[in-house]
């Protein structure tokens, strides 16, 4: 599909990006709102998938990169806004694409790009007392050793040393000027509660009702990690709700920019640690796009088999844990985990690790399937998993208690799902049959016969049921793949640990179990990525969390959160 020609509609302010290896358009900041509105309303790009920034320190510029799609399918439209580094102000797109909310806050937090017009531009992943914006190229972390790995101090005359011995506790944090951590009162909390408490209710007699603010978390069993929900309540009804995150933040992207391309591969495992094969897949695609290399056929088949097995086990786990959250304690989750264990056995057999697979390489895979692995996969996908999926379906789908808690609750309309950039099962449960495997097929997904699972009610129950549908579709794909898989090589060329990657940008996206998982890479022609950004579905799916919960009872928040299926390793990065 070709991208539209904007020269007649926007004779000024929109120019094609002509840097070598780059694509899309550069929009001037003052034309951005008009351009985005036209994109959404006239050109049909109704879905803003990814928003991030790049610090071009040599050019003294900060760039905001947007990826927009049509929900009817097709390739991305990339557009960028460049602003000077001293005064980085970009108009916020939150009115046009509300899904930009958290992503703009993230870009502000990590890169210091100010989005004018954003109603709640607070830090999102870091704490309020944090000094600086860590993804800027001149920012250095406390244990800073060098800009890029490998570090010179490791070879050939290395003296073993612990990082903290070099940089003792207390001296490794930077504070803003005149900042006394002992006396500091977090202003961000007031801002958070202030942003929540915009409602006031007065009854007929003029009696004012106070609202209470309740915090769920950071330590709360339903969040499966460290995640906080701040809500204002009227009685038991939620008036407004905001997720607070970043407790597990480790600046994956900064680490990624220090690493070489290959070194990033095992780090991607640790994003969504339940589905590391999919993470590997997305990252490998992005780098392969930059390198311009093809993958041998057999490797492609193995990749698809692994990615789909990942989806199966992720959804099993999601269903199990979701039922745990709403009170069906442990029986369903342990039934689901049994099947997941068998899938993990296969991962361990092929990659050497159950969860941190690190199995994909650029241009292929780390190693071929060991003897007996294919037989084991066949046993699972033809016999056991279909049987057990039906069992879970029979076990719970008609359960009246489950249905009364989930049917019609936590409603997300089709328009809202698109608006808030929800992805994956969340989007499809709201009636948008958007699946990247179909919309813009990557790898060899165009060869398989499968249906895009879709449900139309957009409630919690549909988000539960669609995961069962997707397991069945994934099994269908694996069944075809294990029958068709050819013999042959699994790697193009010799595997290399260091390589120069041609300058340019690339965006690799896969349909991960939780939604669109994208890796945005900028290469400056060296062996380390200049910019490495992860479009994390768990993180962006939470944008719709607040709006979905308004009007529900506080106890239902847990059910709604469970139905989104987040993993904090990916949300907080």
């Amino acid at each position, binding site marked *: 599909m070709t991208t539209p020609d904007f020269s007649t509609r926007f004779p000024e302010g929109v120019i094609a990006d002509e840097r070598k290896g780059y694509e899309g358009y550069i929009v001037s900041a003052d034309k951005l709102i008009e351009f985005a509105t036209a994109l959404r309303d006239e050109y049909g790009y109704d879905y803003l998938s990814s928003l991030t920034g790049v610090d071009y320190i040599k050019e003294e510029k900060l760039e905001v990169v947007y990826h927009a799609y049509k929900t009817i399918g097709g390739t991305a439209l990339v557009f960028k806004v460049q602003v000077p580094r001293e005064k980085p102000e970009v108009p916020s797109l939150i009115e046009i694409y509300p899904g930009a909310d958290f992503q703009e806050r993230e870009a502000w937090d990590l890169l210091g790009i100010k989005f004018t017009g954003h109603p709640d531009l607070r830090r999102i992943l870091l704490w309020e007392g944090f000094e600086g914006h860590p993804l800027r190229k001149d920012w250095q972390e406390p244990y800073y050793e060098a800009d890029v*790995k*490998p*570090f010179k*101090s*490791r*070879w*050939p*005359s*290395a*003296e*073993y*040393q*612990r990082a903290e011995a070099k940089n003792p506790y207390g001296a490794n944090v930077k504070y803003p000027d005149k900042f006394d951590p002992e006396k500091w009162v977090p202003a961000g909390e007031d801002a958070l509660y202030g942003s929540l408490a915009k409602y006031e209710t007065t009854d007929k007699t003029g009696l004012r009702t106070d609202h209470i603010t309740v915090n769920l978390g950071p330590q709360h069993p339903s969040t499966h990690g460290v995640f906080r929900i701040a809500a204002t309540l009227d009685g038991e009804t939620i008036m407004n709700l905001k997720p607070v995150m970043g407790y597990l933040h480790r600046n994956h992207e900064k680490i990624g920019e220090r*690493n*070489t391309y*290959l*070194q*990033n*591969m*095992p*780090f991607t495992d640790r994003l969504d640690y339940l589905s590391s094969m999919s993470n590997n897949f997305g990252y490998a695609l992005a780098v392969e796009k930059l390198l311009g290399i093809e993958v041998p056929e057999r490797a492609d088949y193995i990749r698809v088999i692994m990615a789909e097995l990942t989806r199966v086990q992720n959804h099993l786990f999601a269903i199990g844990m979701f039922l745990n959250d709403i009170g069906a304690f442990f*029986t369903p989750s342990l*039934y689901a985990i*049994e099947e997941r*264990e*068998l899938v993990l*056995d296969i991962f*361990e*057999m*092929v*990659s*050497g*690790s159950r969860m*941190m697979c*690190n199995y994909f390489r650029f241009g292929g895979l*780390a*190693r071929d399937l*060991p*003897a007996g692995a294919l037989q*084991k996969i066949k*046993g*699972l996908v033809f*016999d*056991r998993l279909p049987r057990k999926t039906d*069992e879970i379906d*029979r*076990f*719970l*789908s*008609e*359960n*009246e*208690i*489950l*249905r009364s808690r989930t049917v019609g609750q936590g409603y997300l309309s089709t328009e809202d799902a698109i608006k808030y950039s929800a992805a994956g099962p969340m989007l499809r449960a709201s009636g948008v049959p958007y699946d990247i495997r179909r919309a813009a097929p990557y790898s060899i997904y165009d060869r398989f016969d499968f249906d895009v699972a879709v449900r139309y009610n957009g409630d919690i129950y549909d988000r539960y049921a669609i995961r069962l549908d997707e397991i069945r579709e994934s099994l269908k794909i694996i069944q075809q793949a294990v029958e068709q898989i050819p013999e042959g090589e699994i790697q193009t060329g010799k*595997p290399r*640990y*260091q390589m120069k990657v041609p300058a340019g940008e690339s965006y690799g996206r896969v349909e991960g179990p939780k939604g669109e998982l994208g890796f945005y890479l900028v290469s400056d022609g060296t062996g380390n990525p200049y910019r490495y950004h992860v479009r994390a579905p768990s993180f962006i799916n939470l944008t719709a969390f607040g709006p979905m919960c308004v009007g529900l009872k506080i106890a239902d928040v847990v059910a709604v959160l469970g139905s989104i299926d987040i993993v904090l390793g990916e949300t907080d990065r």
Partner: protein
Amino acid sequence: MYGKGILKGLGVTAKRFINTYLDDIRWLGKRYYTAEGIKHRSSKDANGIFTIQYPEEKLPVPEEFRYIPFLVYDEVDGEKVNRCTACGICAKVCPPQCIWIERASDPVTGRPAAHPVAFTIDADICMNCGLCAEFCPFDSIKMDHDYELASYGRTVYHLDDLMKPASYYDEIRPINNAKEVALRKEAEEAKAAKKAAREAKAAAKAAQKAG
């Protein structure tokens, strides 16, 4: 009928409950604490109790399983010969940079020598990715199978702790080792053939000169 869904679900639980006993009876005591019992319980036909009672029972790890790396040494005439040449590829490829290598230098010339004086792996930092083993050109650094490393202190391995015999490597990874031995032999033979060819050529030249 209201409650039918619940009853249907309870049927599933009841079936699984009964299956547990049926499977126990079918295996008559052999289901637990035996290798074949564990194999059955982790196969696609597993039915009933699924759990492995660690540490009394242990799930066997597959050959590719990887944990903290170690260094392989060969035994030549009763002496330990470290395969490592201190080339530094593992230290360069390591994502969390947990490998520290000090290369030896020749005491006479002061030139770099092809073996390490110190080799340190900080197992607390190691992320068990296996890239070092994957890219080692001398089959020297390999991933271990021993996962029971819990300790009260920090775990840092130095050269002596890391050395394990080639026979141990063969024990944990027989298929990989056989492949590598064959490859090394092939490379050696190719080298020998090349050398022989060169010598034959030189001899022929010499003979020509003499003649």
